């Protein structure tokens, strides 16, 4: 069966999804983290950037002499997840990082999804030469060195987002970095949409729509695009954690966001530096990222099964 998705189908899809335990579990995990992130400012016990360094005495010059620094503390009642290399509260920073990373990941999905859907749809529904041109452009984007683009974007815009230092409570530098990641992630989406639309293009109902004189763009958006919705949603689900991973890697190689912005990537790469001193500081944000990843994987699989009945049984 290859009909366009209808309201009735959505109802069935939901029924199918509800029966998928792992998909449901993935969704619950994600919802939990989203809720925690949104409640973050309320739950946070400390200011995420405040340093609780112990005062210096001015006399402890020997590095081997034990001292109280307030740094690298293990989880305790005061600091639930311990403290970091500047004696900041890791619990509060993790909440902040989660919020920032989730918001930025959604942003990446919007950017990559927007470009990818537009390019894929136009390529599949337009004339052959346009298709070829856009697909070669996609090839090009695949092969393009992402790092150069990221460095260029940051150099061009600084740590501001077209003048603003903060957008929707997220530091502009973070958004910019994820914007760059989004720019490098759209080709997959474009190919996917194009493939889906090409498959539905030749079916009877599109022929019928053409026959009754519907405008091409109307057909593309009203009939072909919904057909691609399932795979697009699944791909978008997978893209979100990939963006967070990409940001962690960039942080690690020294191309991350400017401090003191916190994101999961910043926390992981910062805490990696002192893992042998306080491993819990690394384990916590890493575990959260892993759960986010697993959650989206299972959710994505569940959605795929639910939205594409062929694959489910």
């Amino acid at each position, binding site marked *: 069966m290859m009909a366009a998705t209808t309201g009735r189908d959505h109802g069935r899809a939901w029924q199918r999804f509800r029966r998928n335990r792992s998909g449901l579990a993935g969704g619950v995990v994600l919802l939990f983290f989203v809720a925690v992130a949104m409640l973050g400012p309320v739950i946070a016990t400390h200011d995420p*950037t*405040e*340093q609780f*360094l*112990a*005062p*210096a*005495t*001015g006399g*402890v*010059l*020997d*590095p*081997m*002499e*034990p*001292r109280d*620094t*307030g*740094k*690298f503390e293990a989880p305790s009642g005061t600091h639930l997840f311990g403290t970091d*290399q*500047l004696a900041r509260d890791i619990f509060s920073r993790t909440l902040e990082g989660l919020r920032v990373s989730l918001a930025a990941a959604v942003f990446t999905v919007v950017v990559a999804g927007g470009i990818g859907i537009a390019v894929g749809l136009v390529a599949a529904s337009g004339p052959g030469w346009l298709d070829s041109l856009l697909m070669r452009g996609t090839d090009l984007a695949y092969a393009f060195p992402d790092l150069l683009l990221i*460095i260029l974007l*940051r*150099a061009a815009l*600084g*740590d501001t987002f077209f003048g603003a230092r903060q957008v929707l409570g997220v530091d502009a530098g973070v958004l910019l970095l994820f914007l760059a990641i989004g720019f490098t992630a759209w080709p997959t989406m474009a190919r996917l949409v194009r493939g889906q639309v090409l498959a539905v293009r030749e079916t009877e109902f599109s022929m019928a729509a053409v026959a009754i004189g519907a405008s091409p763009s109307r057909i593309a958006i009203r009939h072909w695009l919904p057909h691609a919705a399932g795979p697009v949603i699944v791909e978008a689900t997978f893209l979100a954690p990939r963006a967070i991973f990409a940001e962690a890697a960039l*942080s*690690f*190689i*020294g*191309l*991350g*966001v*400017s*401090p*003191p912005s916190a994101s999961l990537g910043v926390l992981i*790469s*910062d805490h*990696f*530096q*002192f*893992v*042998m*001193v306080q491993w819990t500081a690394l384990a916590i944000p890493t575990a959260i990222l892993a759960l986010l990843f697993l959650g989206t994987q299972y959710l994505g699989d569940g959605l795929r099964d639910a939205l594409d009945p062929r694959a489910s049984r």
Partner: protein
Amino acid sequence: MTMMRLPIRGVMGVVFPAILMILTACQSDSSATGSPVPEATPTPTAAVQADAVQTLRVNLPGEPQTLDPQRSTDSVSNTILRSIYSGLLRVGPDLTVQPDLAMEVPTVENGGISADGLTYTFRLREGLKWSDGTPLVAGALVDSARRLFEPGATGRYADFYRVLASPGPDGDANLAVRAARRAGATADELLALEALVQPSLRVEAPDDRTVVYHLNTSTPVFLQLAAMWPLYPVRQDVITAHGAQWPEAATHISNGPFRLAEWQHGERIELVRNEHWHGEAPTLDSIHYSMVGEAGVAMLAYGNNELDIVTLGPAELVQVRDDLALREEFIAYAQLSTVGLYFNLGDEDLSDVRVRRALAGGLDRNEYAEVVREGAVLPAYGWVPPGMPGHDPEVGSQYRDGVAAAQALLTEAGFPGGAGLTVTILSVDTSTSNLTSQWLQQQWERNLGVTVVIETRDTATFVADRLAGNYSVVVGGWGADYPDPQNWLPLFQAGGAFNAGDFRNEEFDRLVDEAALELDNERRIQLYVDAQRILIEEAPFTPLYYGRRNALVKPWVTGLLPSSMEGEIPGALYFDRVVISGRAP
């Protein structure tokens, strides 16, 4: 020494530890009291039984930029260069110059230095050889001096040697270059002037065992300059035959205790003993340098006995402190280096000296050294570090406990309570520089009420932004090339090759110029101290910390001689004395 090396957060094959980290290390209370001599010196060589396998395994923080002595400017390259070359003189562990290729250190008494101080004559030892066994003659030293001034390729270290005479019809070309710099000449004018230097350079080899350097200015520190890598002899025939590629392992020929056997770029370097070296033959057969940038990974390798020596970052220091066994292998000592904050003098707000003084005073340097850096560094108030003539603990004392005064200065400058002042810290994204920037941010926001923004950039963008003046503050520093304030103060003279902020102060320039010509050492040092007072008071730069080195050394590395002026690896200046004895299998 040298530039502190590139910081790219410890990753990717070429990973340089943070600048700061490099300079960092070192404990030792000796640096506080002014003695540069390391306190922690492993067992002497004489009594030990040497192992059959004599290989030392160490880690470099990154890839050397070049192993061409006349082109090198970075401390990683110099770390290797000083093991594979011998110069006319060598700096000893007590920081005095000692003869190396030369038979003796020239003095006025032995006739090596002319009475007017303008001619230095070095008599070479007999039977000197290159690592390929061919005889080394004085002409090789003339070649190296000439290469230093090759037009178009002049590295910044050429500027240290503008004292070499280069008389032309329009006066001395080297002096002309220096004057043009100070006057702010254009690139074309400078290039044209620099081209005049080489043809008339007065470095001569009257016979195969004598080299004579004529100076245009009496320069008491010339002996120190003669011990530095830019004047190491070179094989012009090898360079002519292989071009810019000559420093590769296949074609590299040198004259030091070791020679270059292998250079896998970005991965490893191997030096082996040079059988033709004129000095007492090293016991070590070879030295392996790996290039792993992650401090954590290097630490694991040390624990696994894959490295014999490892330098410690801030987190590793805490790890060692909590580990009784590792503490036994810990050494720490002073480095002649100073790191601090360069202010943007072109910035509208910071062009006001009161704002700069307020920022300089609004910091608790003890907290930085003791708590943030775990005692890996010492709080700094002056420019010339302890352990060097010209260091004066009174310099910069106005910034001790200076928060109240800083607040008053800000109000005076029109920023009451810090309101209206935004300070941008420009930095590269490394763990150490992020640590420093965020600490500075909290200090200034908390103590002065100003708004502080941190902008991290990749290395090249950082330099571009700095050149374009898109910053208020950058963190940077200097390490000694030779233990004399003459290596430190001229950096801030107008037109100086390293005066990035273009600081200009006539009184400062005058004092430094006067000191350069002063033959009475006591007065000379006093002039430098006076100049330093102006520098710290005018605050184009404010010191934050003095460097120290903190490292772990395996007990079987004996005879290691740490130095306050070494490159990137503890004891690297004197690896020829190291003996491996009793290495664990």
